[in-house]
C-alpha cells in the first residue's frame, strides 16, 4: 500500500496555506508528488491524475516537529522492558545512539501523528553525556524508513541531574566535560599512539571520544539541557572555548540571560508550559519562550511528555498566550527545529522540493476547537486511526462488542 501511495500525486486545494518560509497564502494549492512537495501557491496547475483534497476553509501547515521526548524509545513509562532511552552505567555515553532502540511498532506513534505531529527528536536521557538523538518521521515499517537524521545531535545534561554523574558538583561537571573534550581531541591527534598504548589513560573510552569528534568539529550540534542561569552560562562558555555548535534545551531561566544567548547565536529548545520552580530553576516562568524570542534567540518548542507529544500545539498556543507572536510559534514547531537539527533543506516548511509532511487542520492548529483532517508524511496520507480510536469505537456504545 505504501508503494502505491508513494506514486500518487495529491493536490490539497482551496485552503489557507502557511508555508512558514513565507507569508500565508489564501485559497492556495499544495501539490505533492512522489513524497515531495511539488508546488505551493495560487494558480498551481493540477495534473489530471492528482487526487484532490478539498481544503476550503481549512488551514494547511507543515507537519509539526517536536524537539524533545522519547517517542519510539519508551512505550510504557513504568515498564523498564519497554524503555530504550537511557544507557545505564555509562556517564559519558557519547557513542550511544538511540536509533536502533526505536520501535516502529510503538502504539504511541499513531496516537501522535494523527494529531499533526509528524516528526520528533527521539532523545536519549540520563548520564552526563546522554548520547546521540535521532530525528524521525512518525511513519515507516522499519527504523531505516523512519529516520530523518541520525545522529541529529549529542545530548548533554548540564542541569542539576547531570552533576550527579560528575561527582555532585556543577564545577566538577564542567571540569569533567573539559577533560573529556580535550581528551577526544588528543585522541584524534594521536590515534596511533593510542593503539600502541603510548598515551596517558583517557577520561572516556575511545569509542565515546570518537563519537564526540563531530561535535568538537561543529559538524553535529551539542544539545545541552541546562536550566539554571549559571548552568546556561557554563554551556555558553564551553561552547565558546571549544567552538561548538550549541543548542540549549530546557533553558528554564533562559529569559534572564536572553541577550547573552542571542549574542552567542545559540538557539534554544523550550517547553513553554514549564513553570514549577525548583532549585534548578527558581526563575522559571511561562513567558520564557516569548522573552527569548523577543531578544532575538531562535526558539523551537518541545513537549517532553512522550505520550502526549500531540500536545505540542497546546505548548505553542500557550507560548502565544504568554507573549510569543503566532507566526513565531508556528515557526518554533516547524522550521526552527528543522534548522537546529540541520534538516531545514528538507523539512520544516512548505516549499517545492521539501519532504511532503503536511497537515490539514479544521482551523488554527493551536486552538482546542481545531481538529486534524488530513496528515501526510512523506506524501503518504496517514489513516486517522490509532489504538485510542479503536478503543473509542469499541466502547462508544455499551456493552461493547468484543
Amino acid at each position, binding site marked *: 500500500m505504501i508503494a502505491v501511495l508513494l506514486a500518487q500525486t495529491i493536490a490539497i486545494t482551496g485552503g489557507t496555506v502557511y508555508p512558514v518560509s513565507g507569508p500565508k497564502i489564501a485559497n492556495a494549492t499544495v501539490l505533492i508528488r512522489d513524497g515531495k512537495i511539488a508546488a505551493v501557491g495560487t494558480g498551481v496547475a493540477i495534473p489530471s491524475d492528482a487526487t484532490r483534497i478539498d481544503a476550503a476553509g481549512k488551514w494547511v501547515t507543515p507537519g509539526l516537529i517536536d524537539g524533545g521526548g522519547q517517542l519510539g524509545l519508551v512505550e510504557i513509562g513504568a515498564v523498564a522492558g519497554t524503555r530504550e532511552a537511557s544507557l545505564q552505567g555509562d556517564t559519558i555515553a557519547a557513542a550511544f545512539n538511540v536509533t536502533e532502540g526505536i520501535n516502529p511498532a510503538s502504539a504511541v506513534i499513531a496516537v501522535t501523528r494523527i494529531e499533526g505531529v509528524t516528526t520528533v527528536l527521539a532523545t536519549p536521557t540520563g548520564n552526563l553525556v546522554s548520547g546521540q538523538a535521532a530525528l524521525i518521521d512518525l511513519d515507516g515499517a522499519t527504523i531505516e524508513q523512519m529516520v530523518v537524521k541520525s545522529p541529529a545531535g549529542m545530548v548533554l545534561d548540564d542541569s542539576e541531574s547531570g552533576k550527579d554523574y560528575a561527582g555532585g558538583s556543577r564545577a566538577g561537571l564542567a571540569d569533567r566535560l573539559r577533560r573529556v573534550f580535550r581528551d577526544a581531541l588528543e585522541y584524534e591527534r594521536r590515534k596511533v599512539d593510542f593503539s600502541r598504548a603510548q598515551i596517558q589513560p583517557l577520561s572516556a573510552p575511545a569509542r565515546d571520544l570518537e563519537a564526540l569528534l563531530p561535535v568538537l568539529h561543529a559538524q553535529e550540534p551539542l544539545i545541552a539541557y541546562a536550566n539554571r542561569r549559571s548552568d546556561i552560562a557554563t554551556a555558553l562558555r564551553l561552547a565558546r572555548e571549544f567552538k561548538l555548535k550549541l543548542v540549549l534545551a530546557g533553558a528554564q531561566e533562559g529569559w534572564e540571560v536572553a541577550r547573552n544567548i542571542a549574542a552567542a547565536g545559540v538557539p534554544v529548545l523550550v517547553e513553554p508550559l514549564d513553570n514549577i*520552580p525548583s532549585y534548578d530553576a*527558581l526563575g522559571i516562568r511561562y513567558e520564557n519562550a516569548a522573552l527569548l524570542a523577543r531578544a532575538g534567540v531562535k526558539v523551537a518548542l518541545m513537549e517532553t511528555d512522550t505520550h502526549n507529544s500531540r*500536545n505540542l500545539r497546546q505548548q505553542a498556543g500557550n507560548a502565544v498566550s504568554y507573549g510569543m507572536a503566532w507566526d513565531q510559534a508556528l515557526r518554533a514547531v516547524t522550521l526552527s527545529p528543522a534548522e537546529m537539527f540541520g534538516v531545514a533543506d528538507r523539512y520544516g516548511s512548505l516549499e517545492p522540493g521539501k519532504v511532503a509532511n503536511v497537515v490539514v487542520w479544521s482551523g488554527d492548529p493551536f486552538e482546542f476547537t481545531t481538529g486534524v483532517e488530513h496528515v501526510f508524511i512523506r506524501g503518504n496520507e496517514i489513516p486517522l486511526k490509532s489504538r485510542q480510536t479503536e478503543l473509542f469505537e469499541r466502547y462508544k456504545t455499551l456493552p461493547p462488542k468484543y
Partner: protein
Amino acid sequence: MRTLLYLTLGLSAGCAAAGVRQATPAPAPAAAPAAASQAAAESMSVDRAQYPSTYRRHPNPPVLIRNATIMTATGQEIRNGSILFKDGRIVAVGEKVDAPADAAVVDGAGKYVTPGLIDDHSHLGVYAAPGTEAESDGNEATNPVTAEVWAEHSFWPQDPQIPLAIAGGITTIQALPGSANLIGGRSAILKLVPARTVQEMKFPGARYGLKMACGENPKRVYGRRGGPATRMGNMAGYRSAFTQAETYRRRWDTWRKDHKGDPPERNLRLETLAEVLRGNMYVQNHCYRADEMAQMIDLAHEFGFKIRSFHHAVESYKIADLLAKEGTSVSVWADWWGFKEEAMDGIQQNAALNQHAGGRPLIHSDSPSGIQRLNQEAAKAMYAGVRAGIPITRDQALRWITVNPAWTLGLDSIVGTLEPGKMADVVVWSGDPFSIYSKAVQVYNDGWLVYDRADAAHQPRTDFELGRAPAPGSDR
C-alpha cells in the same frame, strides 16, 4: 514532568476523598456525649475540637462585573451580562443588575465570567515545590493502611505552586495524600487563598475525604515489604481494615449511647474508617482500570458505604453505564495515558462518554502544572467528544471543572455555580475560557480579589519566592 515521575514512582498520584458539605456544619466526628457523663467526656480528646478551620472571609467591597459573558454553570451563557457579589455572596446574575453605590465596578467588555474552578485532586502543599525530599510529605508509605494521617498536617501554605494555581482561576482544592497506600489518609478541603496556616484555608464545614488507591501503586510499594503484592492482596487489605472498623464503630456507638464503663480505646486509624462507615466521610478512590472499579463498588456495597468518585479513572468509559447507575463521579484527565500499564487505555473522549452515559465526569489535575489550566484541559476533553460525535455542551464542560468537583467534595450547594446565594468564587477571563488564548485576569475567592493579572498588588507571592525568584514581570 515531575508529576509523571511521582506517578511512576508511586509517590504521589492518588485519590482521596471529599466530604459531604451542605449549608449546615458537619456533625462532630462522633456523637456528642450524653449529659450524664459530661465530666468524663470533658477529659477526652475525642470530644474536643479537632483541628478546626480558622478561615475568615476577607473584607471587601461589593463588586459588579458588567458587560461580560456570564457562564453560570447552570445552563446559561448570558451575553452582555452582569454579576453582583457582596459580603462573599453572589447577589444577582443577569442581563441587568443594579449596583450599590459603594460597589467596585469592573468593565467586562469582551471578557467571560465563570465560577471559581475546583480541583478535586491536588497535591499542592503536600508535594510542594521546590520538590526536594524536605517537601515530600504526601505519602506516609510506612504501612499500606494509614487512615490515621491527615493531609492538612503535611500541607505547607508557602508552597510557591499555590499562587500559580490561583492565577489559573482555582478557588477550591482537595489536597490529598498520595497513592502509595491502600488507604492513604484524610484529604484537606481548602479555599485557595494566601494564608499563614492551613487552618486559615480549611473550607468551613467541609467534611473530610478518605483517600484510597487501587492497582499498581500499593502493590509496587509494598510488594517486597510485607505486602500487598497483588491486586487480590489489595482487596484483602481494604476488607481487613474495614472489618476492624466495623467492630470499632459498634463499640463506640454503643458506648456513646449508654456510657457504661470506660470508653473504648481511641484508635485514630479506625476512627477515620468508622466515619466512612457512618457516612460522614466519602471515599474517593484512585482507580484506573474498569474491572478494579467494579471490584471497589462491590467492596463499598459489602461495607455499606458509597464511593464518591473514582480518580484517574482512565478506563471509566468502559463501565460508564455502571458508574452512572452507582452515582459515583469520575475524576479524569483530558488525555494523560501511557505512563504505566494501568494507564494504557486512556482515551480523550473519556469524560464525554461518561457524560453521554448519564454519569458525572469532571476534570482533575493531580499536577501542579495541570491545575493552572483546568479550563484548557476541559476544552480538550469537550472538543475531543464533539469531534467524535458526542454532543457535549459548553455548560457541561464548564461543570466538569466547577460544580461537578464541588459535588464530589459535597460543596455543590455552596460553590460551583454562579447563582444568588452562592459563595462569591468568581473568575474573570480575558476571553472564552475554552480558547487557548484566554487567561484568568481576575480571581475572586469568597468575594476577595486574590489575583489580578493587571495589578501586581494582587499577585500574591509566597515567602519561598522572596529574594530568590524574580517577581513576575520583572527583568534581571
